[in-house]
């Protein structure tokens, strides 16, 4: 094991197809690398799984937001109509819950949708204007037609020369050093 170099974020292999990056990612996992990330211009099925990321918290956050919206929406109407501003209309019940359903429904959707979006962004740590991978010039093509696999230098198995050789062995078309310097 070599001393991790502070100025290097990691090594980046460049691939041209989803199959190539899937293969490279699973090989990297097999080789025992832990700090791997993969970049693609569109979602590649199975890639998150291949780099060891099976579950996302987004659905749970969405459920929570939806419940909060639902209870909050109904609670707001109940509190307004029955507690703080009760109006007696010919003795009709103050808690006329069927009339509260549309707003409760809308608030449920609003709560769930907002938390899905904000939850997704927050878990992804976005907005994040700077990231070391942007230091690689060719990485601009990650949003067009290239696929990248990054093995980070903090990985215990990381070794500059050997990891570069590993990336070449899984058919990376180019291997780039990702510098940490801003």
């Amino acid at each position: 094991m070599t001393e991790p170099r502070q100025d290097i974020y990691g090594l980046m292999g460049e691939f041209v197809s989803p199959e190539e990056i899937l293969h490279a990612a699973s090989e990297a996992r097999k080789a025992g690398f832990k700090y791997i990330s993969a970049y693609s211009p569109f979602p590649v099925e199975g890639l998150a799984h291949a780099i060891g990321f099976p579950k996302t918290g987004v659905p749970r956050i969405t459920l929570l937001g939806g419940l909060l919206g639902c209870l909050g929406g109904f609670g707001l109407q109940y509190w307004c109509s029955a507690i703080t501003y009760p109006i007696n209309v010919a003795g009709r019940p103050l808690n006329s819950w069927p009339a509260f359903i549309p707003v409760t429904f809308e608030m449920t959707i609003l709560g769930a949708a907002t938390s899905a979006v904000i939850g997704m962004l927050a878990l992804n740590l976005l907005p994040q204007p700077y990231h070391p991978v942007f230091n690689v010039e060719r990485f601009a093509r990650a949003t067009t037609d290239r696929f990248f696999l990054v093995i980070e230098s903090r990985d215990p198995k990381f070794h500059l020369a050997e990891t570069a050789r590993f990336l070449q062995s899984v058919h990376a078309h180019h291997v780039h050093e990702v510098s940490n310097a801003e």
Partner: protein
Amino acid sequence: MSDIEPVEHQPEIRRLDPVLEPGYTYASVTDKIAAVVLTRPPSMGWIAGFSVSFCLVMVLFVSLAWLITKGVGIWGINIPIGWGFAIVNFVWWIGIGHAGTLISAILFLLNQKWRTSINRFAEAMTLFAVACAGIFPLIHTGRPWMAYYMMPYPSTMGIWPQFRSPLIWDVFAVSTYATVSLMFWFVGLLPDLATLRDRAKNRTQQVIYGIFSMGWRGSAHHWHRYQSAYLLLAGLATPLVLSVHTVVSFDFAVAIVPGWHTTIFPPYFVAGAIYSGFAMVLTLAIPLRKAYGLEDFITMRHLDNMAKVMLATGMIVAYGYAIEFFMAFYSGNKFDVFLAEQRLHGPYSHFYFALILCNILTPQLLWIEKVRRNVAALFVMSLVVNTGMWLERFVIVVISLTRDYMPSAWGRYSATFWDYSTFAGTIGLFVMLIFLFVRALPAIAIAEMRELVLEQSESREEKP
């Protein structure tokens, strides 16, 4: 694909047009769509179209300024016809705003591949239509600067909104719809904004797209959460889109006015909304694909499918009209019967017959495949349907209000110059926003098109 098969071995099934013409790569779809925004200079057509719509927006501003100065008396509304053009236009615009989310959410859940190249601008259209719709109830209140009274907030007066009123439901439904549509649109745009950031030619573009793309870098972790969130949003937007026009129809159906108080309203309003929305998508898609040479992405398959959806929803609307008449006579309620007769023989009967012509009779031509494949005919048809849907709202609002229960409460309605100028102004606003949109943001979802390229190449490999 290239090997030529003998004709007699061709399968009997009629070949569908592709959703994406063959021969594209990840890079070439990206280039073609991004070029519209990044490199192409604005064409003369764009400048002319933008200028005309910009002038109409000025007309809108003048109309609104005059309205705020003088009050709603400048419109044709009176007692008993308190709901004139403002509500007609509101319902019309919000209906148009339904197709975007329908295409994005429902067709996504149904895994319809043809949605990919039209969902982005259909969503944009939704947002702009909802923005136009939102103006009308606001100015119709008479004192738009007091509109915040409709929101529940702890005021010093100690009063709260009446949550049993459909008008308050409407506030929540429309504002939720606008918010969720905006988020859905933004989430879809995120990877494409990153594409534009990485391809931007100058510093200004880089900074602007850089800010809005939030540092998206297409990491597999990101995509994983992104897809999860997108699927959830689609699932949430589906009941939402159906609920919005349902709630709008409650504005009418909960009232006891003859012609409004019917249970058919919610489904028939939703069908009408989708009908007019698809018509508007066609109205926009046909010039867009022509002007920017996007015929390979928005193919005949898309136009054909949209025409079919229009035909289907048009038939549901026709059923709604039929049931209205049937229920009026079947119920034996003399006020309902009278109103039905008023539609046919009353002072506004020409609106009703024009509506039947536009919404029911003309679209029957869409049964003919030749018409569905004729781009010019489809364009005209989409304009006819949009006119028809506007007439439908006019018939619902005005005929019912002019013929209430008491003959002493009968009245007449005619729109004034300011009614027309405000309406024309919102059309200008809508068109201007569309013009700005196609120049500033990718009108077709690039990342999704790349997936389509992948699928196309996979399906080609699978063929023997």
